[in-house]
């Protein structure tokens, strides 16, 4: 166990000492500021939110808050930016080391390939979790600079179809809880790219394959004729993070998504690990 922790610490050193690891964090910061700027100075969003709340008998000024805006900002970032940055790191973890030649240096050591992969995967999960929580904290902190700390309004359209109006305390609790699910989603995206990186390919190819897989899911999911196949699509299960805001929460949906994501991660690890175990590592 001590060796495992030492090796994990070393992997984290390697990961967080690289500048490219921080690209995602910086881009989230830039995107959030750009969105906040838009929210603050354009009246469109406020107007539609006011209309929606008033139509349901709520006072808009109680719910146009830091929590509401932080959640609104999260959705496009999770959909568009998160796969890119987790995929980038997941694809790099093995493939970049193989490309640079450092993997050969490691594999002179009496460490099994499975163990090496597991250590790297754990480092990738730490990165994915860190990124999600940084994203959540940054979104909330920046939104708080421009918007008051009041109740939370959640509106997620079809297929989730969630309309929730929450107190600040309750909203904050659910906002934090939803990040646990987001962290699982981010880890799954990272694992997908990680799996491709275990094959003999360039790191960029692993990242692109992972993103392509997710985009293909998105495309298939948006085809109405394939609606009955939704449970077979990864993104459908990713969306369980918004189910947290459902009143009452759909636990069956959440547990089913978690089980599918756990199985998907395990499958990716087994496929990637087997490919990595079987391949020859040459200069």
């Amino acid at each position, binding site marked *: 166990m*001590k*060796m495992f922790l*030492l*090796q994990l610490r*070393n992997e984290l*050193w*390697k990961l967080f*000492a*690289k*500048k490219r690891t921080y690209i995602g964090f910086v881009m989230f910061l830039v995107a959030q500021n750009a969105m906040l700027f838009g929210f603050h100075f354009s009246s469109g969003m406020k107007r539609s939110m006011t209309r929606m709340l008033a139509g349901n008998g709520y006072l808009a000024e109680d719910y146009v808050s830091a929590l509401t805006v932080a959640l609104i900002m999260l959705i496009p970032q999770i959909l568009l930016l998160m796969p890119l940055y987790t995929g980038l790191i997941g694809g790099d973890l093995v493939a970049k080391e193989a490309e*640079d*030649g*450092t993997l*050969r*240096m*490691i*594999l*002179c*050591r*009496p*460490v*099994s390939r499975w163990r*090496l992969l597991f250590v790297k995967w754990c480092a990738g999960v730490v990165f994915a979790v860190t990124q999600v929580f940084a994203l959540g904290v940054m979104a909330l902190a920046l939104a708080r600079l421009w918007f008051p700390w009041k109740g939370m309004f959640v509106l997620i359209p079809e297929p989730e179809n969630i309309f929730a109006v929450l107190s600040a305390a309750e909203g904050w609790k659910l906002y934090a809880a939803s990040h646990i699910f987001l962290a699982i989603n981010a880890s799954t995206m990272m694992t997908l790219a990680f799996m491709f990186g275990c094959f003999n390919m360039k790191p960029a190819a692993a990242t692109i394959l992972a993103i392509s897989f997710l985009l293909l899911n998105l495309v298939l999911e948006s085809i109405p004729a394939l609606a009955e196949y939704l449970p077979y699509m990864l993104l459908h299960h990713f969306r369980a993070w918004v189910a947290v805001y459902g009143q009452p929460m759909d636990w069956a949906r959440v547990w089913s998504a978690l089980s599918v994501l756990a199985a998907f991660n395990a499958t990716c690890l087994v496929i990637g690990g087997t490919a990595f175990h*079987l391949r*020859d*590592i*040459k*200069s």
Partner: protein
Amino acid sequence: MTALIELRSLRKVFGQRAAVESLDLVVPRGEIFGLLGHNGAGKSTTIGMMLGQVWPTSGEARVCGHDVTRERGMALARVGAIFETPVFYDYLSGYRNLEVLAQFSAPVSRARLLEVVEWVGLTGREKSKVKTYSHGMRTRLALAQALLPNPELLILDEPSDGLDPEGIHEMRATIQRLNRDLGLTILFSSHLLNEVEQLCTRIAVLQGGRKVFEGTIADAKRTQPRVRLRVNNFDQATRLLVERKLIDSAQDGAFVIPANGVGTDELVRALVENKFSVFEIAPEEETLEAFYLSLVHGAPVSDPARTLTAPPRVGSETGAP
């Protein structure tokens, strides 16, 4: 004397191409063993199989008494390796790199890290990022990481690649020191025949994935010395010597290979008795380079008869007019 490396009928096929074919090799403890061969001869693949990085198609690779494929952990526990063009995490310090790599073998103390850093002469630069290191410093760092697990076997794959003459000299002295002072067994793969000649006690030559020679440096240099011969008519002279079974063959219009046990005095006598004018006759001292070149250019790769034997010196000219 126990063997630290034992390869038995080792074979590796990539697609349709056999990179290593039926390779048997034994490196006893305490030796500096040279692995020679041109690019693509199979040296790096062989080393990859010794280190469990390349899976053999068939055969067995045993290192430190353990099968690398099945008992990788035990086989490599006390093995250090350096590859051509040492690669590190450039954005980390030398010290951190050593820590990262060493802890894939066993926990390593700060004192041991600093001891090895001092041993390779990097003290004072260990906290600098590797991207600021020269090629020579990277090679020293590579040596340091190889020494950290307290190895009994060092595998060096072209360690002098890219070094300047001073660096090559330093590397040679270090290898000798490691063998002499620490008693390490060293497998040294190189293109630099001069280095191999100066360092190694025994060598194996690979060509096209097959071993075409294994023996001591002395064996290599002793095999069938050539005699430089300058006479008034080389072709007629050599034809006569072949007929009288005094030479095996002639080479390059200027050299002959005397038959077994025949001295230069007998050649001169035979030539003078037959009215040839002998201007010069001198045994040519065999160099490893000449031996190596004759091996890799002088015989078909697939000729199994050449394995473990000295190369037949078949010249292009037989001396017949």
